[in-house]
């Protein structure tokens, strides 16, 4: 690519990215919101905090070690993995698929100890019900999905590379963004073991909150997970016509009050009403374009992704870039979650229930209310429980100010 072309492309991307960030960044959370000076002791008892800290510390370090091993293994695979091409009688793309799948397979083997450690720790704290063999089987079956995905991804990328050579990323990035949209849209249909909500009050609340947030009614489904875990959770999935909200049955087992569950419901509806999933596509696109360009650059010495032997390098660079981008993506995630919390507060008018919900998470889900800064930066896609409680109190203060001018 000539220098002038490169400069023009860079400029175009910078302008586009700037515009995208300008469009995607704002949220409903007031910029001048002042969070009250609460501490961990205001959220939970010392014993619960200690337990949550102990629980999360192990998992945190387990994850860090796992990621270090991932990088080391993939670096080694990038260096030597192309030799496994001798195991293929397929053409370039077929061999590339094989190398991609084998890379994931090797990674899978190295991650087993960390996964088992995580299950062991969670079982120690009664946060998981799943047995080790059951987990291993589920982990194995999950690998089938990963193999299928990487084959599709490599077929696209290497297919483009056959025609466009090292400019494959120009077509590859939009293709991946389109795949992301398809996956996000179809996710609700991929969720197993779900059923309609059977609580009329909850269903009515869902309708009411959707109306108040200015969006069409969104179907609410219950996902049965209590056979595997005790942890409470809920999430929004789908886009436009496929939008749904999934609530885990562990959230409805009596440990949370109805009002607290309604806060969760309003929060998840807010993800849809504020178009967070579409915004995720936008953020993904912002990273997909330079990310695919960097992968193309990194694989140039191995013949770009036109050659199967470049696949191990591409795999390593892809994972490394994902890890590097994680802190930024986490900031985006935390902003969206904070917005959903804020909109939920605006919808339910119930900061007491919101605070109760977040405090209960510390007890029930063993969520550390105030994890170390580096951990939040690297891992957390949600604000800390402490910050969420502080937002609830800040909202209370603001609403009292509104009602008592």
């Amino acid at each position, binding site marked *: 690519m000539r220098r002038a072309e490169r400069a023009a492309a860079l400029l175009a991307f910078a302008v586009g990215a700037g515009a995208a960030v300008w469009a995607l960044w704002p949220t409903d959370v007031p910029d001048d919101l002042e969070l009250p000076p609460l501490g961990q002791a205001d959220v939970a008892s010392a014993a619960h905090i200690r337990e949550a800290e102990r629980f999360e510390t192990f998992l945190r370090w387990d994850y860090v070690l796992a990621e270090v091993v991932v990088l080391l293994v993939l670096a080694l695979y990038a260096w030597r993995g192309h030799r496994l091409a001798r*195991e*293929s009688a*397929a053409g370039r793309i077929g061999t590339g698929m094989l190398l991609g799948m084998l890379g994931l*397979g090797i990674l899978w083997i190295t991650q087993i100890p960390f996964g088992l450690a995580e299950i062991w720790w969670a079982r120690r704290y009664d946060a998981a019900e799943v047995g080790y063999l059951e987990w291993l089987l589920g982990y194995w079956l999950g690998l089938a999905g990963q193999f299928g995905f990487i*084959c599709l991804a490599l077929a696209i990328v290497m297919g483009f590379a056959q025609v466009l050579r090292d400019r494959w990323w120009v077509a590859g990035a939009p293709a991946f963004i389109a795949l992301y949209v398809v996956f996000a849209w179809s996710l609700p249909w991929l969720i197993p073991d779900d059923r309609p909500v059977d609580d009329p009050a909850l269903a009515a609340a869902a309708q009411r909150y959707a109306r108040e947030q200015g969006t069409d009614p969104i179907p609410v489904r219950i996902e049965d997970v209590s056979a595997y875990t005790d942890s409470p959770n809920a999430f929004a999935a789908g886009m436009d016509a496929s939008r749904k909200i999934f609530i885990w049955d562990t959230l409805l087992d009596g440990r949370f009050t109805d009002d607290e569950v309604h806060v969760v419901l309003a929060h998840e509806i807010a993800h849809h009403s504020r178009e967070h999933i579409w915004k995720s596509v936008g953020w993904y696109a912002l990273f997909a374009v330079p990310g695919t360009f960097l992968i193309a650059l990194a694989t140039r010495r191995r013949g770009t992704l036109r050659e199967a032997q470049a696949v191990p390098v591409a795999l390593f660079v892809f994972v490394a870039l994902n890890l590097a981008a994680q802190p930024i993506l986490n900031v985006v995630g935390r902003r969206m979650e904070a917005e959903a919390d804020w909109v939920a507060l605006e919808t339910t008018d119930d900061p007491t229930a919101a605070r109760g919900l977040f405090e209960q998470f510390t007890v029930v889900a063993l969520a550390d209310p105030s994890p170390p800064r580096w951990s939040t930066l690297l891992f957390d896609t949600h604000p800390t429980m402490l910050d969420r409680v502080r937002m609830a109190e800040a909202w209370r203060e603001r609403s009292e100010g509104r009602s008592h001018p």
Partner: protein
Amino acid sequence: MSDRPVRLLVTDDLERSRLTVFFRLLLAIPHFFWLGVWTFGAFFSAIAQWFVTVLRGRPVPRLHEFHIGYIRYATHVGAYLALAANPFPGFLGAPGYPIDVEIASAERQGRLGALLRLLLALPALFMLVLISGGGPSGVGPYWVVSGGIVAAVAFLGWFASLVRGCMPRGLRNLAAYGLRYTAEVYAYVLLVTPVYPSTDPRLPAHAGAPPSHPVRLDVVDDRRRSRLTTFFRFFLLVPHLVWFSFWGVLALLIAVVQWFFTLVAGHPASPLHRFLAAWVRYQTHLFAFGFLIANPFPGFTGTPGYPVDLELPPPGRQRRLVTLFRLPLALPAFVVSGALGWLLYAAGIGGWFAALALGRMPSGLRDAGAHALRYSAQVNAYALLLTERYPFSGPPVEPSDDAPG
């Protein structure tokens, strides 16, 4: 053998990559998808080919080539899945894969035969289902094969390949036999060839001749079958089944005594060896009669001289360690014997109809059944301490002046 329409080519060296063996089923995921797409196309093109062949008496060359490519590709995928070959197959069915099939070019076919092709193929498809041990399922016809013999081979071969880094030749050859028969059936059904599929187990010489084994099956049967005894074959078995059961219980008890004796003495006791040898020989005569591998009503004492007879070694020294673990060591062989039992059933059921119609047992069915009987006899001889030599599951090969592959 040279007049077979589908010739098997075996250039596999038995070496297996432990890494790709471990993930074999998952690595084949893209091939499942592609095979499904190709099967879909083959189905509709086969209908078109049928019309043309019935009207013109000759298939369309382009579709003929398409179907040959499909059969070849499916054979490659089947071989990969069954661990009969090592490298990841290409997606276009190009010749040159270590387990490959060579199919003759398009030729004139009788219009009547073409018109009734599917009907005429029913016995062969039925045989295929019996050999496979299951019904049609999965993404293509080759998945049908995976239910019985080939699946047993793949299952055992997986463990063997992980431990040894190579596939046992007997298992590889057995899988190759199953794959060739499947290719012949589909070549017949897809109007690629008018030659009826043959269950004859003989493989090309370059697949590697079976090693010499002290337990040998001698077949001097002339394939003539009495329609009368064929019709009542099952009922004629009744007295033998009663006698076989009593003798079997006694043989089991004697085998336990023989085991202890052999452990202590380092060789089997001659009288007990003779008793057990007679029982194994009798069982072979009985099954040969019952499944129409032989014609005359057998004696009750297992005396040599039956048209399908067994040569057994005299008692000899046997390693105590191997004797100690004889039953666990025999387990894989029992699995294969069970799978080959379907071949025997297939031969018997198909042979019953053929013998009633023709007064003769087709050579393919007879030889396939004989192979199953031979292996069963070797397994029983091994388990009952008649020989220390492990059973060899590979089918016989055609005679050749060339050195085996």
